[in-house]
């Protein structure tokens, strides 16, 4: 033990950490802040050089998302946005629910049972994640057109499993493995079946892990762009494809695009805040082996 550092050095260090954290925060939050500002600007303020931080805010961009039609100086847009938003909710929640329902038993089996080809199977699941989407999307496009899944919510939920299911299985598997097998053996000695162990012991203990998986899966689904672009139509487009519709041929409607982005980011934000404490626990859970 060398002696304690002088108090002055300690507080200097604290200040340095604080300043560092502030810079990091600024760096991370600034793009969002900028989008928020853009969404409140009128077209005249949008293009000003140097960029304006002080201006009289307008909610016309947000109004245009739901009202559409010609609104004063704003080029009109059809109010498809509410529908896109609803589509995103249906598809993302559906896809995550299906992934978790299918992923829990799969992850449990891969974590706790021994059977031939186990690692190979786990690898196959993983491989869906690193095959480029274009390898799937063309066959899926043909198949969906033929069997009527094209431009349906159900079809998209199934296609989104390529995004979420491998990820769900691998995440949950690592969380399940964290739980000491002594606990589940004790439960079995007390007369629990395999299913009982899963539902009464494993699931409650890995709630934080499941929460993290659900949130991340939801974010991946919410942000998906390529699959819905190819497999959906106007009736089922999610907000990601909806937001780019503000790039027109003769101008880009930055304000409306920013407003759409802000509204589209809200569900992720709210959901993340709701399960924040789980996320912090869940993220460290996998780290400590």
């Amino acid at each position: 033990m060398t002696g304690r550092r002088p108090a002055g050095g300690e507080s200097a260090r604290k200040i340095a950490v604080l300043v560092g954290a502030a810079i990091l925060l600024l760096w991370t939050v600034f793009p969002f802040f900028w989008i928020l500002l853009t969404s409140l600007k009128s077209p005249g303020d949008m293009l000003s050089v140097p960029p304006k931080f002080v201006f009289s805010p307008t909610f016309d961009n947000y109004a245009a998302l739901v009202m559409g039609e010609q609104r004063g100086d704003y080029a009109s847009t059809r109010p498809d946005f509410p529908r896109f938003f609803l589509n995103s909710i249906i598809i993302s929640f559906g896809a995550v629910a299906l992934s978790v329902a299918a992923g829990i038993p799969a992850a449990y089996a891969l974590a706790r049972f021994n059977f031939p080809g186990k690692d190979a199977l786990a690898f196959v699941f993983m491989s869906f994640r690193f095959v480029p989407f274009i390898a799937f999307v063309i066959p899926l496009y043909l198949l969906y057109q033929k069997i009527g899944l094209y431009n349906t919510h159900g079809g998209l939920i199934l296609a989104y499993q390529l995004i979420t299911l491998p990820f769900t299985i691998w995440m949950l598997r690592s969380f399940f493995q964290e739980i000491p097998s002594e606990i589940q053996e004790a439960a079995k000695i007390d007369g629990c079946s395999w299913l009982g162990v899963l539902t009464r012991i494993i699931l409650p203990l890995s709630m934080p892990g499941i929460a993290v998986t659900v949130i991340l899966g939801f974010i991946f689904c919410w942000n998906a762009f390529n699959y819905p672009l190819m497999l959906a139509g106007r009736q089922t487009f999610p907000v990601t494809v909806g937001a780019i519709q503000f790039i027109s041929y003769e101008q880009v409607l930055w304000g409306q695009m920013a407003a759409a982005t802000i509204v589209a980011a809200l569900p992720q934000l709210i959901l993340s805040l709701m399960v924040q404490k789980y996320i912090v626990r869940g993220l460290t859970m996998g780290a400590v082996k």
Partner: protein
Amino acid sequence: MRSRRGWLTGLMFGVLCAMGAVTGAQAQEDEALSYFRQAKVDWRQAAGQSLTIGLNKHPFTESLLPLIPEFRKLTGINVEYLILPESEYFTKLAADLSQQRGEFSVIMTGPMRNWQFVSADWISPLDEFLNNPKLTDKAWFKLEDFYPALISANRWNGKIGSGVGEGPLYSIPVLEESYILAYRKDIFDQYNIKVPTTLEEMAEAARQVKKHAGIPGIVARGTPSVASMGTGFGSGLKSYTDGQWSEFDGKLNATLHDPRSVKYTELWIDMVRESGPPNWANMQWYDAMEAFTAGQAGMIVDADFFAAGYEDPKKSKVAGKIGYALIPTGPGGKVYSGLWTWALGINKATKNKEAAWLFVQWATAQRTLMNATLGYRNYNPSRMSVTNDPRVQEIMGAWGAGSYLKTVARNLETARVFWVPEPERTRMGDIWARALHEVYFKRMTAAEALKKASVEIDKVIKEAGLKD
């Protein structure tokens, strides 16, 4: 009691207003229907059929959507639509066309896109519909009202390497786009800068603007993509070479390394490097357009109708301060601008071809296109009667103190589709654009970079089976 009466009066007033609005809309719709019923065509011959329309995000598109109920009333045809921005739209469209499933009946296309679709036999020639008196009242539709250059642009005889303006008509144009020079008249006047008529003069003007006004002398598209090539840069190159040069020779060999093309490229890149914006290499069309609109450039050579944005005082810092002129030319003094038209075509795989044609005829009718320009800023009009309408003249005539309309009219006399027709245009253009970056970043000389690009393009053409 009083408050209730007030409430009642308010309600009645509201109802009356609503009725007024409804009857107003009704009158407008009746007027539209009687306009279309003047045509000696049975609009209801395909009643009950359904169409899906693939549309690019565009003011013309915006103008169509509110009118779809009117079309349904006129024809009894149901219309569903899908709108995407250009690049996503063409991705999706190609997927559908290549499968021949006929998801989209009517598509938004244009000359260069048609070449790709015609080569693959994906779209229908429209002459058979136009010449069928059961489907078209030619005297009413007036194909001759469209600018001849635009109709030509949408014709192609299907021969790789030539034949634009000949053969079948594949799509009906809904707007005109050609390329002109827009410059800051206030700055040019203040510092006595000459409006350029040659590339050398343009480089000098750009230098002067940068020196005196402290803003980039010129902005231009610069991303390494085909989209950067055919507008200002390409139109300037064809004009510089008096229309004698094109990117392929008669045998479909790439000629980018031709000495005239090399010389032009050197001058252009030097100008952009010396007097252009620092982020030229990342500039999309909207970056360039917005920089000019924000007063951050002395000149721009790009789409003529960008003027609608430049001249909009609500968002432009330079409205009323702009002059318009033809692109600088070569020794011959004649301009050879590129040309593009958005246009409506018909998917060959669609089952409801007659319904699709009725839609195209309705959507490109004089009344529909007039509404698109007056109500939705669809510039420039593809029909002469729309341009010449006093209401349209009043708007466009004010731009650049009249110099805009004059410039566009003169440009259209010689403007033609920039590209040599061949289905590999996109890949070819991308390679070409990358060569410009090699020069800009001084990794190669213009001669080396363009030679390399020519070799690469020859390989692409060969691999695509377009030549032995």
